[in-house]
């Protein structure tokens, strides 16, 4: 199947494509950033998604961490470049460095913590104002394994997400619930074939050489 490499997007041009369909799979690469208050489980979500692990005492993130994960949807190989940020307010001013040029964001809150939900809303507002206009935003109500002591109601968050055009899921990094699903949902919503998303700034002109897609992602 002939495909068009993405152009312009932060990491989009890294979607190395063999020209004229020598490869069966389309492939694209997306920059995704995790935002949210401290200790809501951002790093844990990433760790679960990327390594399938969960650490009860995940160390606090200083600055930011970077990981990648590749998934397959239908005939497309999607590589996520994931930026996991520090949650403390003090580090807020570094956040634009990570969300600039991002094609997707997961804004995380803790369902036991009302403040973290409010904080998630301000992150969404900031993304709408400052990030790429086409950015796909997902809202994740994390620690869903503790739903018996929840404070943020599912319906309240769902309604907020709908009003603001966000994907929404309650997740649990601890049990793995909805973790892959939320990344998958984002991947599905991201445009795979258009070169229009050119808001990115960290351009990789040499993508063809460095970002060869893995051929066996559906192993």
């Amino acid at each position: 199947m002939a495909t068009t490499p993405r152009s312009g997007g932060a990491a989009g041009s890294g979607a190395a494509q063999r020209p004229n369909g020598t490869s069966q799979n389309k492939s694209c690469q997306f920059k995704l950033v995790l935002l949210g208050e401290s200790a809501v489980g951002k790093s844990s979500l990433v760790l679960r998604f990327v390594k399938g692990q969960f650490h009860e005492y995940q160390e606090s993130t200083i600055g930011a961490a970077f990981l990648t994960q590749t998934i397959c949807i239908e005939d497309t190989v999607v590589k996520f470049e994931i930026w996991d940020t520090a949650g403390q307010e003090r580090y807020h001013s570094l956040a634009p460095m990570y969300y600039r040029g991002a094609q997707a964001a997961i804004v995380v809150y803790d369902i036991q913590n009302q403040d973290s939900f409010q904080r998630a809303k301000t992150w969404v507002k900031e993304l709408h104002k400052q990030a790429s206009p086409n950015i796909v935003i997902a809202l994740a109500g994390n620690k869903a394994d503790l739903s018996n002591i929840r404070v943020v109601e599912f319906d309240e968050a769902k309604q907020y997400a709908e009003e603001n055009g966000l994907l929404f899921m309650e997740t649990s990094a601890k049990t793995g619930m909805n973790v892959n699903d939320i990344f998958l949902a984002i991947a599905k919503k991201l445009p795979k074939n258009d070169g229009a998303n050119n808001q990115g700034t960290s351009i990789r002109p040499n993508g063809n050489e460095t970002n060869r897609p893995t051929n066996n992602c559906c192993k």
Partner: protein
Amino acid sequence: MMTDGDQQEALIKRAEDEREDIFRRYDLGLDPNNVVDPWENPKFEIYHITDKYGFMHDSRLPNTRDSQEVQRNKIELERDKKWMKMLSHWPPAPEKLHKRVYKGIPDKVRWSVWKLLLNVDQAMATHKGVYTRMLQLAKKYSTETRQIDADVNRQFRDNLAYRERYSVKQCSLFNVLNAYSIYNSELGYCQGMACVAGVLLLYMHEEEAFWALNALITDKKYGMHGLFIEGFPKLTRFIDHHDRILSKIMRKLHKHFTKHNVDALLYAIKWFFVVFVERVPFSLSLRVWDIFLLDGDRVILSMAITILYLHKDELLRLKDMDAIIEYLQVKLHKNFGYNDDDAVQALERVMKKLKDLKLDQPPPAKSNEFPTRTLGDFVEADFEKKIGRRRNDYTDTEKQVITDVIIRQEQNAGDVQSTMSYETSECATVTLTVPEDTHSLRSSLAGTSVASSETMSLEDNNIHLKTANMLQNTPQRELLGT
């Protein structure tokens, strides 16, 4: 009086009870009501997986010490004696202290020596009662308690001292950070400080750790205030200087990083904020701390360069941003590839080189890197801060940081373009001259011939180090062969 018959009956009863009890426990199985003696659980394995610093590892430590460790212990015992003697005649001659600190402060005397280097006892004597007062104020007024609690709950949980929730050390860490957020109200609490205070508390008592932390934060020699304060002015200053050094003496690696979007901000924040803890093996980070406490913040810049220098061949082989970041953030923590002594020797050489090249000192600090309020003066937090609400707008400082960061990104993106064209043309030349980094090192130093040859000698030494270390258990003599 108990008859024989009574006694027998009692014994039988006891045995029955015992059996019943054993059965009951098996019936309960994994039920949480089933009280299990700690020794019965595999977690008692901790004594086999815990290293001398209290950190637990995934696998059992070897039963016997290898010859190198035996040798190291022997040396450390000798050093203990020397240090004890030196401590009784403090302060020693600077050269002697320098030499000994670079060899590593023996763990047994680290408590005393760190306190001396940070003037802890003196600070405590001149500020009697201050810590207690700060802690009391913190109980009533600290606005950082929630964040501190969240961080204490995950700081060094793989260390015995912090393993158990609300253990003595966890409580001390919580207290020190809360009290400090009141004492230095302008700074409050910044993530990263828990790690710094957490290391200090492994060696010190609560109040000592408080004053040691204060020395690291406010003393010009260490100046961590500028790292942790809103806007991170010192971080930016140090990162810029780090880039400057890279671009001058490790041009190839610098270009490689630029090409793969590896901005120094991505890997160096944690290096600088917690002085390499959790980014290199703990024993090595202690050695770096020893030197940092002696020689101050320029050690941080030198260590950053040393890490990249020792690993540059490997880093140049990695062709992906994620592989490079993973290498620097995860792999080096698990296995540094060099033993601590070799790494510190390399650090010392790098420090000397940077000094020779006049690159050891970054531009001077601006006033915003130091506290402007009087330390210990209580300032009540404003309403927003009290309720932990985010301000709607960025402060001017934050806006400045954002602008700087964005300029930096765009600059780097621009550099990628020029790097590309440069590298294409460089290819032809490289094949005709010395391969790999030697070439770029030499060319980058063209014009300073003395410096150039010295850098080369640093390179030569490292070749030996590297061969020896690629195989972890290489006998000592290979190292001595240089």
